[in-house]
């Protein structure tokens, strides 16, 4: 069984988000980490390796420095790392990114592709499903649990107030939530091996079946007007009423808002 995991190196937003004067993210001023949803996807793949002996390949698109997340993934137990990097790929939005990753993945054999649901620096949740679309694969998003059943994958898919059990024939693409699992730590020996391991580096020339018009900044239809940090919700309104009065109060509010 072969599993590909797409990972992204993202700024660590734990210590707050820094912006450039033009409103774009100041990536240089922030430490980088492996995107949390992707890390959960990697852990899911590593569990398939533990259980079924799956071969796990991690792939990322980014600056040469993005190699760090591949080495981290390999220090956790991934078998191979592929870095897709090229100046012409810079400035990519979700469309150009998914086109690039799909073009790279066309070189590989796989049964499953796992991506994170979304990256903490963009919060779009589009790249995973778009890769599936480019490659003509079934996609199951928001995976909370992944099981293999013969030539199919069975996924518990998170929904707002319930979950769905979804079965798809492999090859398929799954997008993982960070709630899926607690990712394992690296091991000291894994780190030493990962630093000695070869990382495959691919550029534009290695992408299969992609058109230049769909790559990089030029191939990105998204135009960002303004980026901002998450807006905190207010503390809400507190009322202190007995049960009957509370019901009446709530119904009144819902009517005011034309909800009921």
């Amino acid at each position, binding site marked *: 069984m072969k599993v590909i995991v797409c990972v992204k190196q993202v700024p660590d937003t734990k210590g707050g988000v820094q912006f450039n004067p033009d409103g774009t993210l100041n990536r240089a001023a922030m430490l980088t980490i492996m995107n949390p949803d992707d890390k959960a996807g990697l852990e899911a793949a590593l569990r398939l390796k533990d259980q079924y002996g799956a071969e796990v390949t991690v792939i990322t698109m980014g600056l040469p420095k993005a190699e760090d997340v591949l*080495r*981290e993934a390999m*220090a956790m137990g991934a078998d191979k790392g592929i870095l897709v990097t090229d100046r012409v790929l810079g400035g990519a939005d979700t469309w150009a990114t998914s086109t690039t990753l799909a073009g790279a993945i066309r070189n590989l054999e796989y049964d499953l592709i796992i991506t994170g649901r979304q990256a903490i620096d963009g919060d779009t949740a589009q790249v995973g499903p778009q890769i599936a679309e480019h490659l003509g694969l079934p996609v199951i998003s928001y995976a909370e649990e992944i099981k293999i059943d013969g030539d199919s994958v069975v996924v518990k898919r998170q929904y707002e107030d319930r979950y769905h059990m979804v079965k798809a024939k492999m090859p398929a693409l799954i997008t993982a939530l960070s709630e899926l699992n607690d990712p*394992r*730590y*690296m*091991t*000291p*020996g*894994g*780190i*030493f091996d*990962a*630093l000695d391991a070869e990382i495959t580096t691919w550029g534009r020339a290695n992408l299969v079946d992609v058109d230049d018009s769909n790559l990089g900044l030029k191939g990105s239809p998204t135009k960002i007007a303004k980026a901002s940090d998450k807006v905190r919700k207010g503390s809400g309104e507190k009322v202190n009423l007995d049960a009957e009065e509370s019901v009446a109060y709530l119904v009144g509010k819902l009517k005011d808002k034309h909800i009921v």
Partner: protein
Amino acid sequence: MNFGLEKKYEMAQTLFREFAENEVKPLAQEVDETEKFPRETVDKMAKYGFLGIPIPKEYGGQGCDPLTYVMCVEELSKVCGTTGVIVSAHTSLCADPIQTYGTEEQKQKYLVPLAKGEKLGAFGLTEPGAGTDAQGQQTKAVLDGDEWVLNGSKCFITNGKEADIYIVIAVTGTVEKRGKKMKEISAFIVEKGTPGFTFGTKENKMGIRGSSTYELIFQDCRIPKDNLLGQKGKGFNIAMHTLDGGRIGIAAQALGLAEGALERTIAYVKERKQFGRSIAQFQNTQFQLADMATKVEAAKLLVYKAAMAKAQYQKDGKTSYSVEAAMAKLAAAEIAMEVTTKAVQLHGGYGYIREYDVERMMRDAKITEIYEGTSEVQRMVISANILK
């Protein structure tokens, strides 16, 4: 000469730091208060290879080096001195002598499970009448057919009751050296559960309270003849060589305690307000912190240098690291005591309260000036080398 860290050490440091913050720090206070041996943490460390860091892969280890191991003990000790010494005693005092002096059979039987963390190790040299003076040993081992028969006791043994495999030093006869009769000392590997091997009192300690410190008692304890470690009569050399390595581990523990106390103090002085401003704005605080940080950095360089000297020894089998280890331990231990004491002072009354980590760190630091060779012994080792 380059003082920067290579990428692999940076990554290892990140790993140990994250593990220490997430898995060790939340338990540190409870471990201290209740003298609870942190078994769950030991199991987790085993899972991630922390109990076999410098041991070659062919023996189940991680195939890293002494510097990586030192960083692990350092980061663990930043948040919990107990957890730091568990790893240090296991690795330096039990796995290392088996790796260095063991036969292939002994390595397969004992080193592999130690490196994988399936078994925990300990080391028994100290006796009630033999600490710094190792010649004062009373524990005896007598060969009887195919077995050694051990009688005697060892005290203050780290990982005492929790370990599975013990290196035990014992007297196996007398030899004449320069016309003087001396005790012949040998080293042995003893497994927990061997009939005649029991535990005495648990020590109620000032610091590192979660580490299991026990007396080991041997009463007609019979172990296989093959469990002699190294040559008969070479036990003193084995013990001294083992302690050279152990001192680097303890130096790393001391370094971690000093760094941990400094980090907490920096955070505290920024928050604590007196006379309308944070105490970080007072020059006394600033100068104290400057001295603490400078000493911590000096200790770190000595500890890392000793680890690298040991790595060189592992490559060429010649380089001595005895003096480097003694200097690292002497400096790091005394700096740990000084820095943790100043950390308590800068915390004022709160520093004397159990809820604040620096109180525990000051108690933990004291032992680093005593075990695995007191500071006085380190001065003897260093001066003997200077004056030879």
